């Protein structure tokens, strides 16, 4: 199983990025092999539709689960048909969140916000 997390830096100790669509990197962590790879998020510099492009990156990297603080509806519309489960991240680093997920401590993210529709905000 592969877990995707938006991160500010390319380390497991990195903080989780507050934005999904415009995070600088994604961490893809393989639970079985314990391998981590960091992908640069090319959606971050898009003028619009960042959530869509970022979600496509997650799908293309075969993630099964996404841990994120929040998600806009465009990104959700990409992830749902891809059957990727979305969980709300908790406090701490990316590593802390992975541990929390494995210990079944995380809740599903049910609050999808209206999104920024090409305008992106915060």
């Amino acid at each position, binding site marked *: 199983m592969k877990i995707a997390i938006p991160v500010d830096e390319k380390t497991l100790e990195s903080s989780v990025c507050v934005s999904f669509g415009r995070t600088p990197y994604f961490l893809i962590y393989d639970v079985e092999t314990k391998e981590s790879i960091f992908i640069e998020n090319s959606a971050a510099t*898009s003028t619009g*539709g960042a959530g869509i492009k970022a979600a496509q990156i997650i799908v293309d990297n075969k993630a099964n689960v996404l841990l994120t603080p929040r998600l806009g509806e*465009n990104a959700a*519309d990409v992830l749902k048909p891809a059957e990727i489960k979305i969980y709300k991240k908790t406090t701490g680093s990316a590593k802390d969140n992975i541990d929390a997920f494995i210990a079944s401590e995380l809740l599903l993210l049910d609050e999808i916000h209206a999104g920024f529709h090409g305008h992106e905000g915060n």
Partner: protein
Amino acid sequence: MRIAVLSGKGGTGKTLVSVNLAAASKESTYIDCDVEEPNGHLFFKPEGVQEEEISVKIVKVDNELCNGCRKCVDFCKFNALAYIKNKLIVFEDVCHSCGGCILVCPEKALTEKAKVIGKVQKGVSNEVTVLTGMLNTGEATGIPIIKKLLAENNPQADQLTFIDCPPGSACIVMESIKDADYCVLVAEPTLFGVHNLNMVFELVKLFNKPFGVVLNKCLDEENPAEKFCFENNIKILGRIPFDNELGSLNSNAEIAVNKNEKYRELFSFLLKTVAKEVRCNETTTNP
């Protein structure tokens, strides 16, 4: 003759001026290009209104024909397309209608459909033809509506058309003044007003439009907008005094020239000045 009325800052009196100039003219046209917040129709209360929906073209996909090559996803600069589990998804709100993806698709799986973004209304109020553009809330740009409004307008040679522009100086304002023959800049005597007047001043110069300024809400005190005009050698077309009665009529959406003779005189005089300037500039720019 198309006369655009703009201001930079909101609330300076664009609608007051454009509505009353149109009402003071014989057989004119009034076009409300402030499609986000159109107000002119509240004053004119036009009759015999015909309405037309305005739509933009949005991409749709026939998933049976799609072969999953993703050329369209890679091409789209706006990220409006995503390919998930062998299905292409189109994000309609993000699509800019450029038509590029349709061209790059090798299987002709992409076509277009219409998405309504607003409407144009055409009616009549006494001798004024009233054209109003209305953008649906939540839509990002009103430019397609403005394009339609200006295309709808086919005035007789000697008739005047007054274009009530949106505030600011962004692309939507440019679209409104693109084909204008003359620009009337409305200014108010405040610090903010002058700062924004400067912006539209730069805009009309950039577009090489002949223009003049109407000073609105004038008081006896020093007027920073008037000072700006003097400093920049800008023609002052007229001065409308700060007037409680005028303000009151305006706030009740009444057309001042129809309610009080003194306003009819004021705006008729302004109209004469504007018409003279328009004709003068026509002969100099079109030898």
